[in-house]
């Protein structure tokens, strides 16, 4: 069963009398364990697509099935629960809680989960370890560099061990070295831990770390093909 299956998804924004068709019939499916990059120029609708896939926004037309269930059948509570349990988000702007430590930020999704509180520290510590930030665990996030902040965001996305991780331009605000490190972690999560990853980017170099690239143009799928030569850690530095 596909984890994500969309058929003819459309999204129309209406402002006053003006209708903007951001998505115009997008169909594709993602199988468990895949590492998919969604590429496209800005304004192509790739971010809107990610928000719809992540239950952060509603599509206007078409059907979206998550794990075989149409999302119209989920209640608002269930959507929150799925977001919490099965999805992790990494945003371009990090979106960390200010005035809070690394540990507090990573624990945030656990607050809304069914995990017993006694396991929170252990789960959060493990997630922080997996992104290599154990030495920063009690730092206030304002003291961290951009790359470190994004790694905190990845740890936060991981803490509930979700099947699916959405990364929306995760390297967009980072220098190339930090960006490389972030992509390496995502690739590691896909290949070693079996997480399904959907990565939004406009850089071909970044997208080529995935196994499959879906290109979006003007709200439609322009191409959907596997990556011939997947980039591996260190490739970027050789060039």
């Amino acid at each position: 069963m596909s984890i994500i299956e969309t058929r003819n998804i459309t999204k129309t924004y209406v402002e006053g009398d003006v209708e903007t068709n951001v998505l115009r019939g997008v169909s594709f499916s993602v199988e468990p364990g895949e590492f998919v990059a969604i590429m496209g120029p800005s304004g192509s609708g790739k971010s809107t697509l990610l928000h719809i896939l992540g239950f952060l926004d509603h599509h206007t037309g078409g059907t979206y099935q998550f794990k075989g269930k149409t999302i119209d059948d989920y209640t608002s509570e269930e959507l929150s629960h799925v977001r919490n349990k099965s999805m992790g988000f990494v945003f371009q702007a990090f979106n960390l809680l200010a005035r809070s430590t690394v540990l507090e930020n990573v624990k945030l999704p656990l607050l809304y989960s069914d995990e017993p509180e006694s396991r929170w520290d252990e789960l959060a510590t493990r997630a922080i370890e997996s992104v290599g930030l154990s030495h920063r665990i009690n730092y206030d996030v304002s003291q961290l560099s951009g790359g470190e902040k994004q790694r905190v965001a990845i740890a936060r996305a991981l803490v509930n061990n979700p099947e699916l991780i959405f990364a929306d331009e995760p390297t967009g605000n980072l220098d190339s070295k930090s960006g490389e490190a972030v992509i390496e972690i995502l690739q590691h999560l896909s290949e070693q831990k079996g997480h399904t990853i959907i990565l939004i980017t406009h850089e071909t170099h970044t997208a080529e770390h995935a196994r499959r690239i879906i290109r979006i143009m003007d709200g439609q799928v322009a191409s959907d093909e596997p990556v011939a030569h997947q980039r591996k850690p260190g490739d970027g530095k050789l060039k």
Partner: protein
Amino acid sequence: MTLKHTINTAIKGLKAHKSRSALTILGIVIGVAAIILVVSLGEGAQNLILGQIQGLGAKTITIIPGRQPSGLSDSAQIFSDSLKERDLVLLKRRENVPALSNIMPIVFGGESAAYQGEAYRLTLFGGTELMAEIFDLFPSEGIFLTEDDVKSVANVVIIGATVKEELFGPAPALGEKIRIKDRNLRVIGILPKKGQGSLFNFDEMAIVPYTTMQKYILGINYFHRLVVEVENENEITRTVADITQTLRTAHNITDPEKDDFFIQTQEDLVNTLGTVTTALTMFLAAVAAISLIVGGIGIMNIMLVSVTERTKEIGLRKALGATNKDILTQFLLEAVMLTGTGGIIGISLGALFSFLISFGLSTALSLDWSFSFPFSAALLGIIVSGTIGIVFGLYPARKASLKSPIEALRYE
């Protein structure tokens, strides 16, 4: 999300803006403090007044001439000369009022007293030797009235401390004669200074035998009051009935509507004054409560600002799995904690000020004023401030909870 973590999150949210939170709750603090202060001082005043009335003794009954006033516009004493010497004689008879142990007529009026060119306007009381016991009056110099003084219509007077000072200054007064209504009255006793605290300020009064007062000063043959002392408290109801019966027979009254006297027990007086002071306290507390509403609107305003300011945080929490209910609870709890904290500070401040004022009143004015912490008002203050938090926090919290996660995340 568990309540514990919702509370922690709310505390963190408030701590992030300490001075703003403090200023926001100021309205609630002032409102609750004002209510506590008013209610506490009201209770103090009530206790003071009631304590003094009860000090007169629960065993006393007052007979007042005239009809009982039925309302404020009713002229009370239409038959003000209805109680006379013959009533006194009848009431003293054991077969009429068996439980009566003592009865004392009282007449009073404002009079001018003069001594060697000094004049002073005072309240003159005509009573008997029983006044000493009933009103707790013991001369610091000389003696009180005796039974003989009353019988012989003696020209003697007991003066209060202020009267003594005004007329005599530091000079000795005992044995001197003061002039009231062309009558020379010999000072046989001087009362010690009692201060403002008493219900009746005897400092500015003088006391003569009621016979003297009736005959030489007022020229009347009736009484203004008859004060009856009953053998014990259990006999009060029966004695009231006995007195009523005796007086109706003596005055040929068959229709109770036409009574030309009415009877007041201490209980009546306590109830009446209690009602008045409670009503006054409630009124003042209601005025103070208006500031609570103003404070509540302040809370709502700040919560709305906070919700807008933290739109991004709300979006993030929703993206990470917070339900609408989680967000609603978080912001509602922030509002309730603001007002609740305000309520607690207000109660403490109100109690502190009330204590200081009570202390000041009892030392500076030597009143028998006791500080009482109004537990009921404190409880009410907590409940009201909490409710204000819910009422005025609900709208901003609901607004926060209904934000679309992606619009909230995009908010700059």
